[in-house]
């Protein structure tokens, strides 16, 4: 039984009521993002990288933008990249999208178990990674395939991993897209949420302990900022002034839970920085130039021993959470197309066209070329096997890497596994 409730009648107290957040739009609702305040591009001040954290606090609830509705770059955050640099950025983002499209179809064809796209969020990983040095360590969540592509990680390795095939260097152990790529300084993806954040802080602390110049950069979704590890990471980063950049990719949805279930009804995610006394920036995540500028600012700040920065990339998850999700059940269909900050690839392409450095024809030709590269990688990967069709790693690999050296009980179990394979697939029935 509940404790004796205080009767509201006659008592000089209001009746308490539980607030449960509710998104503005559900399936069937007309979508109008007019409630969002979108400041003009170029209007936000850019403090020096070595400023006191408090100088950034107004930017935690503003929105750093560079690319305006006129397709031109504006204001002090314009990174003034060369046309070649911007074309590279555009190409990498487009590659991510083409790759996502192909992989999604492969999952639907039954060639693998799972896939997860980042449509609309390409800038938050690609442009941010371009702003880092190649030696800086990336601690990704599972939607940062753009970081790998921006570091020229071979597509073939990615597809092999997605197929869990005999050439997968992770030996078929991990769910598709949970990559690991030490050779490009990309930390192994967990699948559990926000665990990478304190790890990034620790990596950055280690770099500082050793007098190195490398920094760490970690990504997390806005929904996962509710996890304790987000707060652990920020506390340690603030205490030790760790050279780390935290990127909260606020794509508005965590599976079916809108950002209000992570606290977005009260303040921005960038504003979490204020409570920890570290620098914070809220940035238009669909503006690749703004993303680049913000991440470069934070990386420089960290490298100059001015400590951590928390960046919120304000964006929108255009697709479902994953191939296991159906967003039409819980959100309005038109949210993606109605998103007032547009599409990062279309915006950068339009900018390059506006300054005379690109064309619709060049863009179309680029997409065809990228699709060809992806299809070549898929064909090569298929030769190494697709999930569930026999061309996997040897069964013995299941027992490797549990420990550095295999203890007796795993040796016994490995013998059992080999015996079971021989029973299930006797030599006379093997192809």
């Amino acid at each position, binding site marked *: 039984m509940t404790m004796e409730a205080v009767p509201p009648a006659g008592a000089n107290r209001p009746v308490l009521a539980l607030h449960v957040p509710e998104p503005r739009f559900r399936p069937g609702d007309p979508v109008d993002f007019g409630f969002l305040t979108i400041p003009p591009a170029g209007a936000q001040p850019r403090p020096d990288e070595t400023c006191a954290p408090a100088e950034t606090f107004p930017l935690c609830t503003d929105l750093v933008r560079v690319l305006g509705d006129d397709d031109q770059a504006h204001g002090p955050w314009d990174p003034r990249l060369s046309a070649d640099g911007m074309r590279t950025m555009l190409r990498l983002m487009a590659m991510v999208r083409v790759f996502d499209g192909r992989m999604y179809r492969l999952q639907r064809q039954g060639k693998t178990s799972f896939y997860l796209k980042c449509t609309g969020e390409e800038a938050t990983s690609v442009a941010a990674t371009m702003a880092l040095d190649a030696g800086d360590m990336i601690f990704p969540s599972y939607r940062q395939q753009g970081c790998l592509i921006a570091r020229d990680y071979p597509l073939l390795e990615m597809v092999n991993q997605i197929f869990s095939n005999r050439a997968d260097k992770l030996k078929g152990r*991990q769910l598709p897209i949970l990559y690991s790529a030490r050779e490009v300084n990309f930390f192994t993806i967990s699948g559990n*949420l926000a665990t990478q954040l304190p790890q990034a802080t620790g990596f950055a602390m280690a770099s500082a302990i050793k007098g190195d110049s490398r920094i760490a950069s970690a990504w997390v979704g806005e929904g996962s900022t509710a996890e304790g590890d987000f707060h652990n990471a920020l506390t340690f980063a603030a205490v030790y002034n760790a050279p780390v950049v935290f990127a909260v990719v606020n794509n508005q949805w965590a599976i*079916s839970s809108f950002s209000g279930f992570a606290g977005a009804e009260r303040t921005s995610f960038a504003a979490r920085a204020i409570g920890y006394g570290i620098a914070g920036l809220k940035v238009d995540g669909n503006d690749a130039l703004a993303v680049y500028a913000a991440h470069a600012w934070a990386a420089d700040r960290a490298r100059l021993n001015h400590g951590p920065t928390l960046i919120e990339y304000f964006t929108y998850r255009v697709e479902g959470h994953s191939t296991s999700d159906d967003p039409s059940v819980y959100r309005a269909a038109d949210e993606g197309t109605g998103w007032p900050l547009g599409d990062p690839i279309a915006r950068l392409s339009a900018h390059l066209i506006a300054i005379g450095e690109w064309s619709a024809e060049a863009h179309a030709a680029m997409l065809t070329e990228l699709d060809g590269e992806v299809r070549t990688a898929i064909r090569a990967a298929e030769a190494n096997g697709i999930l569930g069709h026999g061309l996997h790693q040897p069964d013995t690999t299941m027992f490797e890497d549990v420990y550095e050296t295999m203890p007796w009980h795993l040796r016994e*179990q490995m013998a059992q*596994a080999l015996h079971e394979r021989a029973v299930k697939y006797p030599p006379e029935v093997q192809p």
Partner: protein
Amino acid sequence: MSTDEGAGRPMTMIEAINDALDIMLARDPDVVVLGEDIGFFGGVFRATAGLQAKHGKTRVFDTPISECGIIGVAVGMGAYGLRPVPEIQFADYIYPGLDQLISEAARLRYRSAAEFIAPMTVRTPFGGGIFGGQTHSQSPEALFTHVAGLKTVVPSTPHDAKGLLIAAIEDNDPVLFFEPKRLYNGPFDGYYDRPAKVWKGHADAVVPDGHYTIPLGKARTVREGEALTILAYGTMVHVASGVVESLGVDAEIIDLRTLVPLDIEAIEQSVRKTGRCLIVHEATRTSGFGAELSALVTERCFYHLEAPVERVTGFDTPYPHSLEWAYFPGPVRVGEAIERLLAAD
């Protein structure tokens, strides 16, 4: 066992769980259901579909993505007098909540001399067989059976899922309710390369209408036999049954249903009759619940045993993605263990 058990209808395990929650939300105004994606959406496995619309947003609601927070607020709600039913989306994600479960929920009654209790039921899908890789496949039940103060329940059929879940919710102690996700939509005998089965037509898929309970701590004899005893729970009940049928062995299969408290009488009675005991679970072997069962059987039935107790389990590795079926304790592993036990003199 039943209170007002009515005529039944076939359900999947998901539907049976949904029905149990629906009934308890309607019967007891102190029951609240909370978890990630469980409100408007109805859960990633649809276990809570329709419940928010029916019972309201302050009875069935989404939470922030914080397993520690979910369990922690459930402890506080229990302190007030509510009967929370938190869902952890996958058992693989329960670990951030361990401090609140182990140090708090499990010990509240003890440390306050029963001034405060934690009458929560933590529902969580567990087990593999869906190509979920290491983060959507684990069977961590032994971590919880090791903790004094927690109860641990694992249903294997829609009928049991409903009755056990209602009993768990009505129980005044914290209960871990592990739902074998491979059984949500159909029984699974371990033959992954055959067409998937559905619950429809299965005898244990007929779920009585209305409120009924299956007491915690009471095992179910799936099939009587004389040749050996098989102790299993969750998915492995079906795998063991399939092997026993195909080998034509006169085995007695006991579905434990509740790991803590354990139905030791049912186990002793069966093993004393058959003299041979096989323990089957999907979880890793070392310090798994099978070790506890093996110790109990050896301690209590030693002079009745005609062969060493055997365990068939998952291997002591993280759950692999592509080698899922080499990992899974399937019909070959179970069948050979049965033959070894029967051959032993």
